[in-house]
């Protein structure tokens, strides 16, 4: 590996690195050992606390909760993509009347925390079922971020692309739909998918307004006395489910990115410093 910070190690440095490696492993093992010890001490390994996994009712309910999470994700993702596309087009409009309001809307929904947005819909406007507030919040927030992603994608294309399209006699809509958007979406696909990962993670906010999704069910399950209040085991299992889902999406993004890089048809976008991080939203 060639790094900015380190030279290829010589014999003495290699010895030192081996020492660091041993130290690192020791610290790691000590850490894990401590956690295991605490788990054992506070009875987290007791069979009773894990017995809930065997019950069919619990399994189906857990699955139902997962389906609810996925439902919010699917609805939010589709609507956010739509919202993003519309407002990106608005921001790129030549008419100030359309461009300025679109920019204001996007900036507004990006600035307000998603929690506050969801609270506004649920408590302020009383939209009824928590599902609507969650999906609406996810749509507006992630849609605004996606609008920025789309816009950046279109703007990063070489100017010659649209000039050539106009020269062939295409109209503005045609240039956008047939020339610019397909290239922009392709180039921005990894960024779009990482935003969808954020959206998936944010469905967990539904917990705050008692939308019966995965985390909400985890809290219920973790409080059941007959299973010895298995909050810790339940949290571990639910976390594993979330991590697995997000990793699947992330892998899809990396796969697409790799395929993109091999594809000669894709325009190499102008690299900005630390660009890959800008896309990696929190």
């Amino acid at each position, binding site marked *: 590996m060639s*790094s900015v910070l380190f030279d290829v*190690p010589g014999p003495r440095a290699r010895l030192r690195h081996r020492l660091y490696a041993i130290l690192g492993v020791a610290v790691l093992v000590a850490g894990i050992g401590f956690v295991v010890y605490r*788990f054992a001490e506070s009875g*987290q390994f007791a069979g009773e606390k894990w017995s809930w996994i065997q019950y069919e009712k619990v399994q189906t309910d857990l699955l139902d909760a997962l389906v609810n999470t996925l439902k919010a994700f699917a609805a939010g993702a589709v609507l956010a993509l739509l919202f993003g596309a519309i407002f990106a087009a608005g921001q790129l409009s030549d008419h100030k009347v359309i461009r300025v309001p679109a920019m204001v809307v996007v900036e507004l929904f990006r*600035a307000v925390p998603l*929690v506050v947005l969801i*609270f506004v819909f649920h408590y302020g406007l009383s939209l009824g079922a928590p599902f609507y507030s969650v999906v609406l919040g996810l749509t507006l927030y992630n849609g605004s971020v996606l609008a920025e992603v789309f816009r950046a994608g279109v703007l990063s294309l070489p100017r010659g692309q649209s000039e050539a399209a106009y020269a062939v006699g295409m109209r503005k809509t045609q240039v956008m739909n047939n020339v610019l958007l397909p290239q922009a979406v392709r180039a921005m696909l990894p960024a779009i998918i990482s935003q969808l990962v954020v959206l998936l993670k944010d469905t967990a906010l539904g917990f705050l307004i008692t939308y019966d999704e995965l985390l909400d069910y985890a809290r219920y399950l*973790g409080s059941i006395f007959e299973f010895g209040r298995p909050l810790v085991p339940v949290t571990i299992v639910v976390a594993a489910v979330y991590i697995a889902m997000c*990793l699947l999406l992330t892998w899809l993004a990396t796969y697409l990115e790799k395929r993109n890089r091999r594809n000669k048809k894709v325009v190499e976008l102008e690299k900005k410093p*630390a660009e890959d991080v800008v896309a990696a939203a929190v």
Partner: protein
Amino acid sequence: MDVLLDNLDLYGPGFLNTVELFLISAVGSLVLGTVLAMLRVAPVPVMRAMGAAYVTIVRNTPLTLVFFFFAFAFPLLKIVDADTFGGSAASYYFSAALAALILYTAAFVCEVVRAGINTVPVGQAEASRALGLTFGQMLGSVVLPQATRAVVPPMMSTMIALLKNTTIAAGFSVFQAGSISLNLSERGENQLIGLLWVAAFFIVLVIPMTLLQRSLEKRWSIAR
């Protein structure tokens, strides 16, 4: 306006607590995130793997779940006494929120710092070594100044996200801006207006930060 003025006793401390949560967890996550980034670029494979594992796990976990763990599950492990946090439930939940925000944001800070270091071409470091600069001199006067330029704009957006994420603490018994409206409803005030004031508070804080970030990005991206 009435809702804001009549309930300044809620809004004042609420906003203050948000700022306090933000500042402490910003410092905490910057420190922890930099340490993690050091791990991720370390010459020792084991350390790189440890850093990578942490970042992968934390980045793919919802922040709400991290809060959930520290608020409900962590106390069951009895690792620390409740008395360490001043004994009261409120101070425990505040520390829990801090832990959740710091551990979560650190993973993102780590990625920003690492990407920043990676933007510096290897040739720069090689050239400085060829000139006979020591490791410290190379870092201090060649690599870090360039990395900082690349890092500051994305770091700003990470910090903006952190500021907005503090509101999740509303669901976990921490009183701050996000939970003002919940307390307002007990007083029979209009929740919508109450919430719009909270939203306005964040807009006033976030939009200038975004503008600053954009101008920095524009001004500093010319460097290379």
